[in-house]
């Protein structure tokens, strides 16, 4: 075993082990959590870049390019593998990069406290594990680790609302993960395997009763992940969770948790089941496309009528993930590449947008769409960055949002799925509707110059004990820097469509997609 094979295991184990350090050091020192997390995340980021250079540097098919770690030295199909292939490496880069960048906000913006950083590291470790695992039961365990981290972080918010939102997410999320576990059980009954690579070879050869079991497994797995990815009408946990989580936590959850779940869905659909299986299962492709398309329309429509900006962006996530799921269901190579690009682009843009919302809440005290009036004059930098990200979210070139939607649209036309092509057009219009509403408030409605609508810190007048989760009330250069950086990055990535296409090519080829599929 060469040294590079150890890297996938280290990327998972190091954050989870380091998660205990802030609590232990917290017994002696007050504020060590941030430094420990920064060091760990910097290490993880360097490791993931090194891994990416290794994976994308070689040549061959997807399995040959991948860096594989066999846990405990047990080889597949018996043992559990961690696989960093051409798709999961990109997700790892997104997770490591975003989690590192967000620290620039949480240092002053909060939530503070050592336990928060323990949850942060646990969540990042779980997300990295979920991105790399090559075993479907291990995926369930990582799904629950991610879930536990997310519930704890949401509940670290100030108000009682945060605890209620976290409990709602816990109940719905656990049911979702359990439904996925039923699917795992059916798949195990049908094939006797849990390893994804072994399953991939097995599923396509099933017949008779075992084929029925695999189809039932497919249904359970899809429903389970529809809950985790927040597809309408199973999305109801998501707006509450995003709105009531502390401002420093929402970007992490919005950018990564649903994104990695959607990645896991792609992994199961295209690596475990494969395009052929979905194409041959009656109505499977149609159901996936319909669920996605309905989410796009419902999510955008609900976003347009929201008054709270965080809630609006949360519904926007429902609709953007609907687009990704619909693109999975199209079963063409172009649409799949588009979905994967949009997955990464959306994660990046939402991280930037929720960070900007946090910065504005600290610096300007604005939380609702109406309170954003006159923002551009008072806070030109953050308003400008947010405007760029919003426009990128609509999908106006050059931006990463445009490339994803473009490939999905081309894929829809290739598959002759006029429904999806129409829905993409409609969703762009609806996205423009809620984005334009915010832009109009920021740039063209004069704000009340006398005082800011709520002065920050009003909510924290309890005196008494120090509230460790209270947001700091100053905007630092680091916060503005990270928002501006993400905005520039989202635009810069708009010129890299071909690069992404080439990077994902080995994975897409392994997905057994048939270009001749017609709806």
């Amino acid at each position, binding site marked *: 075993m060469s040294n590079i094979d150890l890297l996938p295991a280290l990327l998972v184990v190091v954050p989870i082990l380091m998660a205990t350090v802030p609590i232990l050091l917290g017994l002696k020192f007050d504020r060590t959590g941030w430094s420990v997390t920064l060091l760990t995340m910097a290490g993880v980021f360097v490791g993931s870049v090194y891994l990416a250079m290794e994976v994308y540097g070689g040549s061959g098919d997807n399995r040959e390019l991948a860096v594989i770690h066999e846990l405990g030295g047990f080889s597949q199909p018996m043992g559990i593998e961690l696989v960093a292939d051409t798709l999961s490496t990109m997700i790892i880069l997104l997770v490591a990069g975003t989690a590192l960048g967000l620290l620039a906000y949480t240092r002053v913006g909060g939530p503070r406290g050592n336990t928060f950083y323990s949850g942060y590291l646990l969540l990042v470790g779980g997300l990295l594990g979920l991105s790399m695992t090559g075993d479907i*039961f291990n995926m*369930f*365990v990582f799904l*629950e680790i991610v*879930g*536990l981290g997310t*519930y*704890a972080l949401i*509940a670290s918010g100030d108000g*009682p*609302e945060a*605890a*209620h939102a*976290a*409990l709602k997410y*816990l*109940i719905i999320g*656990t*049911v979702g993960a*359990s439904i996925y*576990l*039923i699917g795992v*059980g059916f798949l*195990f*009954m049908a094939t006797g395997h*849990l390893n994804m690579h072994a399953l991939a070879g097995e599923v396509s050869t099933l017949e008779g009763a075992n084929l029925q079991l695999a189809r039932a497994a497919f249904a359970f797995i899809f429903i389970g992940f529809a809950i985790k990815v927040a597809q309408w009408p199973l999305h109801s946990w998501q707006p509450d969770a995003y709105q009531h989580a502390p401002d420093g936590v929402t970007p992490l959850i919005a950018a990564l948790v649903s994104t990695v779940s959607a990645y896991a869905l792609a992994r199961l659909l295209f690596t475990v089941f494969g395009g052929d299986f979905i194409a041959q299962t009656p109505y499977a492709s149609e159901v996936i496309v319909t669920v996605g398309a309905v989410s796009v329309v419902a999510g955008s429509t609900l976003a347009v009528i929201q008054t709270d900006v965080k809630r609006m962006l949360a519904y926007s996530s429902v609709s953007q993930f609907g687009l990704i799921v619909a693109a999975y269901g199209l079963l063409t190579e172009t649409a799949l590449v588009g979905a994967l690009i949009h997955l990464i682009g959306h994660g990046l843009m939402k991280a930037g947008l929720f960070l900007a919302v946090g910065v504005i809440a600290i610096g300007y005290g604005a939380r609702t769409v109406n309170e954003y009036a006159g923002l551009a004059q008072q806070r030109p930098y953050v308003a400008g960055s947010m405007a760029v990200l919003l426009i990128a979210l609509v999908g106006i070139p050059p931006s990463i949002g445009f490339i994803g939607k473009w490939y999905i649209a081309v894929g829809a036309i290739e598959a002759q799925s006029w429904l999806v092509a129409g829905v993409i057009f409609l969703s762009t219009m609806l996205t423009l509707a809620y984005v334009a509403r915010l832009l109009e408030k920021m740039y063209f409605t004069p704000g009340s110059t006398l005082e800011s609508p709520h002065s920050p810190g009003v909510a924290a007048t309890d005196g008494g004990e120090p509230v460790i989760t209270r947001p700091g009330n100053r905007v630092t250069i680091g916060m503005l820097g990270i928002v501006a950086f993400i905005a520039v990055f989202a635009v810069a990535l708009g010129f890299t469509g071909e690069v992404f296409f080439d990077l994902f090519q080995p994975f897409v080829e392994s997905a057994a997609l048939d270009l001749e599929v017609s709806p």
Partner: protein
Amino acid sequence: MIELLTTRYAYVLMFVLLGIGLYMVIASENLVKKLIGVNLFQTAIFLFFVAVAYVEVDGEPGGSPIVPATSDPASSDLVLASPLPHVIVLTAIVVGIALTAVGLALIVRIHAEYGTLREDTLREVRADE
């Protein structure tokens, strides 16, 4: 139908328990009962995995891997229940306990803040605010 019930009762029981668990999650207004519903839902899945592992040859049940195993009369091979689903259930139980603990901690906090455990009362309290 009767034969299905007598030979496959574990699977039938699993789906009944799943249904009861899900119904509790949806219909009960009490947050603790909702959490118990989630637990029941998970327990049904554990039962399912244990049932999957069970093997039978010519009506003779297979042994578990830790006690002397029955051998298959036809081929004299050892007949063993598959240990893998048992390991899966063990792991899933641990995960389930962690989730229950976090859920109960959140319920304690909700009770401390609102003074109620009932979802409908909570809705009223929050509507008033």
